[in-house]
């Protein structure tokens, strides 16, 4: 009984994760090697055909491009804003704490709710942004209707949602910089800009890299904003990878191709995650000995 008991404690977790995380990966690999829609009685083995179809498909390369645009467009404003804010609100004074909790708030809000608000604010006819622009005597912008612009509008929403998280992580990174480093810089007569450029910036580099990769990981999994605000349109202008996956695998019922897309995404994200783990040095690796 004594021998067995640790396994009993671990069993519920292992069963759930085994059934709904590990088994699905094995199953995905199997599915990706078969042609199967919900109408066919038997899946048919087709080797790597699904991958060949995927890589040859214009819709796939479009989805990849759109996802990359979304990710690349959202990262610089997100990181720059976050670092700027983190430096300014780093001293733990009361107003700074209040500001930090305000900036962090969107992080806990549901993506659906955020999508709904910005769907309203970016509405061409009656939305908030265009109301403001018209009040300034400018023309309204087709935020979500212009096929070339829509994905950048969604990237702005992503920045709005994620910036607070990045502020919090940067603030934690800043706290890890020893006070003596700043004192030394002050002794040498460095101005506050020089202190930022030559001390803060290089010393939060590992945090920046961590946040950068995390943002790529998140960016490649964007789905909800697209589902709620643009449905992949207009003219596939916002059809990101996951949206393409769901459309193919679920609405199109092409389970094999859908699984191939999923595995492609999986491979990509695993690579990025391994890269992220490399950036976390021992000293910030929380709690490990």
């Amino acid at each position, binding site marked *: 009984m004594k021998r067995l*008991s640790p*396994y009993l*404690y671990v069993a*519920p977790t*292992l*069963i*759930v*994760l085994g059934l*709904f*995380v*590990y*088994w*699905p990966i094995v*199953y*995905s690999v199997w*599915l990706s090697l078969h042609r199967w829609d919900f109408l066919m009685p038997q899946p048919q083995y087709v080797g790597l055909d699904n991958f060949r179809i995927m890589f040859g498909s214009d819709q796939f390369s479009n989805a990849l491009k759109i996802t990359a645009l979304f990710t690349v467009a959202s990262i610089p404003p997100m990181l720059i*804003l976050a670092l*700027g*804010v983190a430096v*300014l*609100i*780093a001293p733990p004074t009361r107003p700074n704490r209040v500001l*930090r909790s*305000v900036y962090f*708030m969107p992080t*806990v*809000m549901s993506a*659906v*709710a955020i999508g*709904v*608000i910005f*769907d309203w604010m970016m509405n061409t006819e*009656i939305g*908030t942004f265009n109301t403001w622009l018209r009040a300034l005597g400018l023309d309204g912008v087709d935020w979500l209707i212009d096929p070339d612009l829509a994905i950048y509008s969604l990237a702005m929403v992503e920045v*709005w949602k994620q910036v607070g*998280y990045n502020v919090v*992580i940067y603030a934690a990174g*800043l*706290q890890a*910089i*020893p*006070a003596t480093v*700043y004192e030394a810089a002050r002794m040498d007569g460095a101005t506050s800009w020089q202190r930022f450029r030559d001390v803060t910036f290089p010393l939060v580099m590992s945090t920046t890299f*961590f946040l950068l990769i995390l943002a790529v990981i998140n960016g490649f*999994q964007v*789905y909800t904003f697209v*589902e*709620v605000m643009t*449905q992949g349109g207009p003219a596939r202008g916002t059809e990101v990878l996951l949206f393409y*996956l*769901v459309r193919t*695998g*679920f609405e199109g019922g092409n*389970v094999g191709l*859908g699984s191939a897309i*999923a595995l492609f*995404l*999986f491979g990509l994200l695993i690579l990025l995650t391994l890269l992220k783990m490399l950036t*976390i040095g021992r000293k910030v690796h929380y*709690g490990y000995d």
Partner: protein
Amino acid sequence: MATTEATSGQHALLKVGRGRRAWSPAATLRALFLGLLAIAVLYPLWNILAISLADRSSVISTDRTLWPPTSDAYARAWFNVPFPRYFLNSLIVTGTVTIGNTLTAILAAYAFARAEFRGREFLFLLIVGTLMIPAHVTLIPNYLTFASWHMLDTRGALILPFLASGFSVFFLRQFMRGIPKSLDEAARMDGAGTWTILWTIIVPLSWPAIAVVALFAFIGNWNEFVWPLLTTSSEDMRTVQIGLRYLLRDEGEGATPDWPLVMAGTMITLLPLLVAYLFAERHMIRGITMGSFR
């Protein structure tokens, strides 16, 4: 985290700010920048409230007046749209997931923190390894699994996959390892068994970490969107997120949404989270900073 705050970096940053006049141009710019950013975050939230209290027809005209406020949209959300049903579904699903996820994590974390057993390191790696696996990869196979169990469009399908998570186990195990083993041994001397030690010593001492884990499970599951969107088909099974999504845009494309109703739905959807945030924001931020460096 508290000890770190008291020691290193923040002093340095405090000193950077020391000696600057309160109303120097730099301080004014700083306040302006931070203030504008705070408005950029809060304004959309204010928008939800304002539109949800507006009159339906006045919202879509360009010279809209939001005064006088009316609670009409909330009444419609509650009585005309089955929002109470969605809310109840979300409460049941998220409540079960929060409790279940926390319980499985407490058990597993305790074993990993305290017991010596064959394969411990491997099993722990297996569990923490799930943090690397994006949930979206599992959508199709999990859908097929629940289809073969004839469980699509049930609450079970919304609950089961979320009853354990690598993050919860990892986070709790890190915390439990910090509890001195001498406490266990003292209890063992008094005749307490493994199970008793868990519930009388470890769990009460792990309370702050358990709260973080439960909070994250709650937030994550309340906001869950893709899985319930794909697995629920009947209106009766919808959670608030799915209900809200169909409120904005039902199958019929092109129709103008009933904006006050949509915003009232958004408000109802956000409320539990904003309340939780108000009370537990500090725990949440601490959990995020600890959890991110995994």
